[in-house]
């Protein structure tokens, strides 16, 4: 019985935490529990929630992608530049996703072919992508796009903001991929024991590269939404996002050692981070102090993960 209780807490503890924070904020902030604010929270969550879905694949293989914030930056900058040059929107969309995908592919190749650890490769990519963003934008924002493009981040379908719809679609697709496809099985298996996967005759390098491609393309997709929503591509856009994204995935129950985690968990983890961010803003907590809190959340989430690992 006791085991069952611990098991339940392990699996649903995050929902409990979510619930407690939700109720507390509803009590302490009059604005929190309004339709406008809730929609606002989810819309903001969408941007890094999408990246968190990509990151889930990476973390499930036992890797990490620190570059996503910068990849979002460079994708957004190129998106803005191409729009300014008068390219049609479908081309711009494809190109933006392409930039993110290419960054992920490059990371994946370095990780699998040159056998450099994901931490180092993506830390390098983080710097490279940010540098390219600054070179491309010369350090200035690129702003002012057509109304049609601004719909991606600001439009509604059936009363729901488009970013939220995109986020939900991505979550569902990722769920299906992780539970119903070969890629999903291999993602978990590589994180559990890559050696065994390789010795079973599976091209593990291909699948490992693929998860970074997924992560990069999700950063590209988030870049589209953010650029459209802000009507501007900032040279420092996305900076520090990797913190929120990794925190969301780990809080969602994924193990940094790989092999354990779920999209469902990441979805809840993202919402939790979104609510915490929103709550701190509503309660007037200074942005400086917010950074401290987020650092503590990351450490706390990894600590929880260690406790879970010890049980195995």
């Amino acid at each position: 019985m006791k085991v069952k209780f611990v098991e339940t807490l392990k699996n649903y503890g995050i929902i409990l935490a979510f619930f407690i924070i939700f109720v507390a904020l509803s009590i302490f902030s009059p604005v929190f529990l309004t339709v406008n604010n809730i929609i606002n929270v989810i819309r903001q969550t969408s941007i890094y929630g999408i990246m968190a879905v990509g990151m889930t694949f990476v973390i499930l293989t036992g890797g990490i992608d620190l570059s996503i914030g910068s990849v979002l930056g460079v994708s957004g900058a190129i998106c803005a530049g191409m729009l300014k040059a008068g390219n049609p929107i479908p081309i711009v969309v494809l190109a933006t996703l392409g930039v993110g995908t290419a960054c992920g592919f490059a990371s994946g190749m370095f990780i699998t072919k040159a056998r450099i650890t994901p931490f180092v490769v993506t830390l390098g990519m983080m710097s490279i992508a940010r540098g390219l963003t600054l070179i491309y934008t010369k350090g200035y924002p690129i702003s002012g796009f057509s109304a049609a493009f601004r719909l991606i981040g600001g439009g509604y379908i059936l009363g729901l903001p488009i970013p939220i719809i995109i986020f939900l679609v991505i979550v569902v697709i990722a769920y299906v991929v992780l539970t119903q496809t070969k890629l999903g099985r291999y993602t978990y298996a590589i994180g559990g024991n890559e050696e065994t996967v390789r010795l079973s005759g599976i091209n593990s390098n291909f699948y490992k590269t693929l998860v970074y491609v997924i992560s990069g393309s999700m950063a590209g997709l988030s870049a589209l939404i953010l650029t459209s929503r802000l009507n501007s591509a900032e040279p420092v856009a996305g900076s520090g996002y990797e913190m929120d994204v990794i925190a969301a995935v780990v809080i969602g129950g994924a193990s940094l050692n790989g092999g354990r985690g779920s999209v469902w968990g990441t979805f809840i983890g993202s919402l939790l981070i979104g609510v915490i961010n929103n709550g701190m803003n509503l309660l007037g907590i200074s942005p400086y102090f917010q950074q401290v809190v987020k650092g503590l959340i990351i450490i706390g989430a990894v600590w929880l993960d260690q406790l879970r690992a010890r049980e195995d």
Partner: protein
Amino acid sequence: MDDIVLSMKGISKSFPGVQALKSVDFELRRGEVHALVGENGAGKSTLMKILSGLYRADEGEIWLKGKQCTAHGIKAMIDAGVSVIYQELNLIRQLSVAENIFIGREPMLPGGFIDWRKMYSDVRVLLKPFNVNINPKTKVYMLSPAYQQVVEIAKALSLKSDILVMDEPTAPLTGNEVDKLFEIIRNLKKNGVSIIYISHRLEEIPQVADRVTILRDGEKILTKPLVELTTAEIIKHMVGRTLTEQYPKISIPIGEEVLRVEGLSKKGYCSNVSFNVHKGEIVGFTGLVGAGRTEIMQTIYGRMKKNAGKIYIDGKEVRIRSVRDAVRQGIGLIPEERKHQGLVLGLSVQDNATMTILDKESVLGFLKQKKLSALVRKMIETMNIKTPSAKQLVRYLSGGNQQKVILAKWFLHNCKVYIFDEPTRGIDVGAKVEIYKLMQNLAKEGAGVIMVSSELPEILNMSDRIEVVFGGSIVKEFRRDEVDSETVMEYALGLRERTGQQTPLRAGVES
């Protein structure tokens, strides 16, 4: 009797899917050496882990020196006088003998400085009864395993332990050192120390033990004074059946050649290896550890790149440049390092067993879930894999059942050649027989089987042909009926020249 220092009553412990101990009683008298024997998985180490405070029993009581023990944890048990000397010694190799013995409770001078002089003299006093020449300042890694063990025992005594658990203490020792250890044990006994002695080497037990407790499948079978038991009786109680069926060899008609290896070489590991395997045949590879058997297999399997040689499957030459090529050609490896190379411990039986067939059993990347579950269910049934369900994580299965899951993985892939590397290492006797039977079923269905093993009885009884490897080459091939274990050993040790066309290669591997 009041000289009972330890009494464990009705101890039960279960792990997910396994009941490791079922209401086990165990007692230990003052100054007694009590041997604890049983097969792998019988529950010996679980019982000792409960005693040492590493695990907590689900049910049962522990009484130490007449008092019920309520505190829990490793520290509490050490304080109560229980010390465990583990198989893998728990010393810090880079620290000195004295530092290891007094770690965490170094004698101090005022101001937080260590009182080295007192520490060294205390260690000399501690080591004196052992009659060994060990300098307290020596770093532990410079000592032989036997001396390291002495240091462990001295550490336990310095903790005022009067109950010592020795887990396979003779495993790393040579003959003389074993005698020395037994002398130490006898001395400890005289001083009133009680010892729980765990060993797989049954021939040692009459030399040291006063009483014997036998565990099987988590239950206590008996506790008896040693003089009332013969070794044969001990074995009988350990396995619970007589072992005539230990090697269920059946005769299988040998078919066409399925694998041929010609002149295979890998610099530094093996050279000019040639052999073949037929359908229905089990070819045993034996030799000393480090002779290159595993490396030969890894080279065939594409895990190591070969420098020279040709590989034929069904008479056709195939190019194997990676593991993927080998698997595609129908070669499956059941590795020695099951947990590190054969399984993903955190995944289910189903996910492990179907790993090799996801390509075949998916459409556009989407898995045929129903088909996969059905296949796995059939495997669990036909291979008699003991698991609560296909969703159980393989981590929680016993060694024998884990091995069966790996087998299922390759069986589903429908391999032509199965390479078993030490197929029964760490697997208890009952499961061994099942693995042999499964191995023969594979042969019967027309596969070729290679079995690499250090266990000569297994090689001699299960193989149709035996290849002896020495210094990275095959030095001798025997048919099953023309050889005995002494002759095989002589070739494996390099004491006999190879026969046949190839030139001798005695100084190990060419480089």
